[in-house]
């Protein structure tokens, strides 16, 4: 099980439209607007976009209207194929449709990748603190490691909707050409896409942090705001470089989550003792988007 970060859809699949609604039995129990809801949704679209990755689309207008970029949903299949739901960053939410970017690397995500259009899912949320939209910069630089690409579709979309939209650059690292999410370079919200692969089979050879170093060396991060999402090790390496430059930044992190709303206390992330009296942040509530200075990156418990 892993906190799977979600991605977005730029090319909606042929609509097999099943309206989203609340779970029967919990209808009418959902709280005031802004609250958490459990939404029953049939899989409306499914696109394979890489060796082991898919876009999953759900037509859930009410839920889609409430998603902020960087927020996540707890996603389950019906009947349940896993005991716990899985956290997914919302990759995109537009026109009543929510899109998740799924990468299959565990039993739960593999099973999810096999679901067919029309199959029932449960979407619980939205949860967490997303990216700030009130801290504008002339240039938004997004650093994505693998499935960490997910939240940047919706973030780019929402940044481009601002009165003074920034330039949006994407630095995207993957293992190899087969893993690269198809079509990402054609997404209109990205003004520039720099792709890196570990084996050099697509884009430049290297990883997303190498891409950050290159932009830094070229002086292209001046006045930029950084947004990053990827594995702990990537974010830890990035933070070493970023701290040196002092570029303002937000990192979307992942951790195993049991519930998504603070009660299971499973998603503990070590806190930077210089900025916090407590030893851990609960990522589901303090994050998943964190100020990187609040995290203790060198902690031995981080993978």
């Amino acid at each position: 099980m892993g906190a799977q970060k979600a991605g977005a859809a730029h090319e909606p699949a042929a609509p097999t439209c099943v309206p989203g609604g609340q779970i029967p039995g919990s209808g009418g129990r959902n709280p005031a607007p802004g609250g958490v809801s459990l939404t029953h949704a049939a899989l409306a679209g499914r696109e394979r976009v890489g060796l082991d990755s898919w876009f999953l689309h759900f037509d859930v207008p009410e839920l889609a209207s409430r998603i902020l970029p960087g927020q996540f949903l707890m996603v389950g299949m019906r009947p349940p194929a896993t005991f716990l739901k899985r956290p997914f960053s919302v990759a995109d939410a537009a026109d009543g449709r929510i899109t998740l970017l799924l990468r299959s690397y565990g039993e739960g995500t593999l099973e999810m990748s096999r679901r067919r259009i029309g199959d029932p899912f449960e979407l619980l949320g939205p949860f967490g603190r997303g990216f700030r939209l009130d801290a504008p910069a002339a240039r938004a630089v997004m650093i994505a490691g693998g499935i960490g690409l997910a939240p940047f579709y919706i973030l780019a979309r929402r940044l481009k909707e601002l009165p003074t939209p920034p330039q949006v650059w994407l630095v995207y690292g993957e293992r190899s050409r087969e893993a690269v999410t198809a079509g990402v370079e054609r997404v209109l919200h990205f003004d520039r896409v720099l792709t890196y692969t570990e084996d050099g089979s697509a884009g430049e050879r290297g990883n997303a942090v190498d891409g950050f170093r290159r932009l830094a060396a070229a002086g292209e991060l001046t006045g930029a705001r950084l947004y990053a999402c990827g594995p702990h090790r990537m974010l830890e390496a990035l933070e070493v470089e970023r701290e040196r430059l002092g570029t303002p930044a937000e990192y979307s992190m992942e951790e195993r989550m049991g519930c998504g709303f603070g009660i299971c206390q499973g998603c503990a992330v070590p806190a930077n003792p210089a900025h916090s009296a407590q030893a851990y942040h609960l990522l589901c509530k303090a994050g998943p988007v964190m100020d990187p200075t609040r995290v203790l990156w060198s902690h031995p418990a981080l993978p």
Partner: protein
Amino acid sequence: MSGGSAANLAVELAGVRFQNPVWVASGTFGYGDDFQTIFDVSRLGAVVTKTLFLGPRDGNPPPRIAEVGGGMLNSIGLANIGWEAFRERKAPWLRQHLPPAQLVVNVAGNTAEEYREVALRVDAARAEVGAAALELNISCPNVNEGGTNIGCDLRLTREVLREVRAVTSLPLLVKLSPNNADLVPFARLAEEEGADGVSLINTLYGMTVDLHSRRPFLGHGSGGLSGPSLLPVGVFWTYKVHQAVRIPIVGIGGIARAEDALQYLMAGARAVQVGTASFLNPFASLEVIDGIARFLDRHRMDLEELIGVAHERRPQNVPAAAAAV
């Protein structure tokens, strides 16, 4: 009363009236306020707080949870904000939003003295925070006894119970650990030492090994098993303990649906606690309340007629279909 049902779900337990027998278990509902954007917590029978120590605890390093067959393991490590922070920051919200649901304060300590001290403070603030009862989490290592799990040792359990019982007149529930060959001696001990009830069961010891690192997966090594696999274990001990003691039983373990809760009630529990199910479905406890009401309506029964009915001699000629919820 729930969803237009005619059933009276109210139940008296340890001298306290609960509007229904469905509580939410310690450690699976935070301090209640995490549910303020989810549902109206005043509909519950009771909220049991996360285990409170005198002072705050950080808990264990990650990973803290793992999905396993039949449920999940957790090694949160009793992370909590501490009694004083609860009283100042959480209790006011509960005081305002929880009634008529009751508040059960779950406490623990590193030593018997710490149990006494926290119980004393809860007792002193009982009106201020609206505490209806105290639940003792005895599944904790005693730091003075080489880390022996108190709830697996009759002598240590007796010591804790005496310290606590001496300083509080609050209704006292003892939450029993299932990591024992027999729970009956612990339940009898609780009764002897003046506890007003037992809640059972806590989590079972468990471990999962990561095939990639070839080491225990959880940061702490081992954890506590919860989820559906606990249902038959908890129902079994409810049935056994019901035969052995007269104090009431609160059934816990694997309850996700009304059908599960009904098993506990029939086995002799006067109330139940919904735990891990709230992680997957935050509305699970409300669905259990509604399901019990529907069952009672359909069978034109009172809750009291149901409690412990499994101990009666098997009746003749009950059609199978009559069991439907």
